[in-house]
């Protein structure tokens, strides 16, 4: 700051951008969420040429770009690929810290799902641990229909 402005608060224009969005889930995510909500099933799509199962499901294989026409149910249980424990109350966290995030490769899937780990102490979490989905009591067709993953 220049000397003449010493001790003077800089002017700030406060603003907030608030624009409502409605994202259509689309056929593929729609089917995934309906299966979660109504049947507590975790569904993936399969690429026949790459022989890979995608969870969360994708309509088109992101590797070979062929259409993933086959649906498969994967296990609600899987292996923790990585994790972190958010200790600071970062602005994006929707609940009080600490929050444990994990990448979980479910049995039968070839990709990992991002989600919460809970019912475990931060010290006990480790890569390679086996975890299982706990479904929410009230489900409304969102990723929150899985409440969290917890140790088997």
């Amino acid at each position: 700051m220049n000397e003449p402005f010493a001790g003077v608060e800089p002017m700030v224009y406060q603003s907030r951008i608030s624009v409502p969005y409605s994202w259509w889930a689309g056929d593929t995510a729609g089917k995934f969420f309906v299966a979660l909500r109504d049947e507590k099933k975790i569904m993936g799509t399969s690429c026949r040429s790459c022989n890979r199962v995608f969870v969360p499901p994708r309509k088109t294989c992101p590797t070979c770009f062929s259409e993933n026409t086959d649906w498969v149910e994967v296990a609600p249980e899987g292996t923790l690929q990585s994790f972190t424990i958010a200790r600071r109350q970062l602005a994006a966290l929707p609940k009080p810290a600490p929050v444990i995030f994990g990448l979980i490769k479910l049995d039968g899937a070839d990709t990992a799902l991002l989600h919460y780990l809970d019912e475990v102490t931060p010290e006990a979490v480790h890569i390679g641990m086996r975890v299982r989905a706990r479904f929410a009591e009230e489900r409304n067709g969102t990723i929150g229909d899985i409440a969290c993953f917890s140790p088997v």
Partner: protein
Amino acid sequence: MDKAAIIGVGMTAVEANKATDTFADMAWEAVNKALEDAGMTLNDIDNIVTTSNDFWDGRTISCMAVSDASGARSKNVSCVEGDGAFGAFYGLTRVLSGSYGTTLVTAHSKGSESISSLITNAAFDPIYDRALGMDIITACALQANAYMSRTGTTAEQLARVSVKNHGNACQNPLAQLPMTLTVNDVLDSEMIADPLHKLDCSPVSDACCAVIIANEERAAGCREAPVWIKGAAFCSDAFFLGDRDLSRAPALTQAAKKAFDMAGIERPADDIDVVELYDAFTYQELMWLEAMGFCEDAQAGKKLENGEFDRNGTLPVNPSGGLLSGHPVIAAGLIRMAEIVKQLRGDAGACQIAGARRGVAHGANGLCGQSHCVWVLEK
């Protein structure tokens, strides 16, 4: 590839909070510094590429809002959303197209004016995973754990990156966070998201950078000796974090291989004199070095401990202090390029690596290094 060169660079200081400068003020400062550096005026600029991000700027079509200040009025201006190294790549292709003799590339952001956690949360897929509340720090913390678990890299080795780069920044008058630290200072700093302490993370910053790229004919008339672009390549990985092996960066390996092949480089560790790379977090410096082939997989931490990446080491990395010492998103990769240009000209002041002839600059874009841009520059 036809010959093209970087003939002018200009950057503002990297600061926590540029309260006196708007986006346009920053751009105008960087552009005029680059023009002066090249010994040119705006009349010598054939076209302009601005690089920005609407979410960070909080405005729609943010690139156009700085076009006047970037000297684009009455000129062909185009825009890139993402890191400045990618904006420069586009600027290079415009020169190589033969339609333009010179391209002025700018890149700016002011992290101080919004909330990084909310902005970067919005990079996640709105249908599948945004609601979980992850952001750039928690995402990169997942990657850091995966990388450390696979390679055996230690928290102390990560901390050593912070000590080195903040220490290097003490020689850089444009750096935001010059600091003399110990490994314990880093390990004792606040744990934000395991395994990343506060001092493992780059700060929120404001800055703008401008670079002028020219074809061979136009480079002939510039004030300083041209720095030639010997190789430039970028490559992208899958979008969803769970589709990737987060402990590896195959897109960077491919981008580096392409850039090195273009430049005729077979042994990067021996053939490159200085590296400026995208160290948004400590682990990234080590991971990116391995992915680019500057050392064997899982060995960067040990080499760092041996001092090989220090300013007086065999391969100085981030002698400017890197992003850990100031991280203006978007401008970051373009600043890496400008720092290498200064090194190769011998203009890097107290940060100068003696005898640097050939350098690598690296930019990254997307969560956890989804895409990477690698530049090989030579005097």
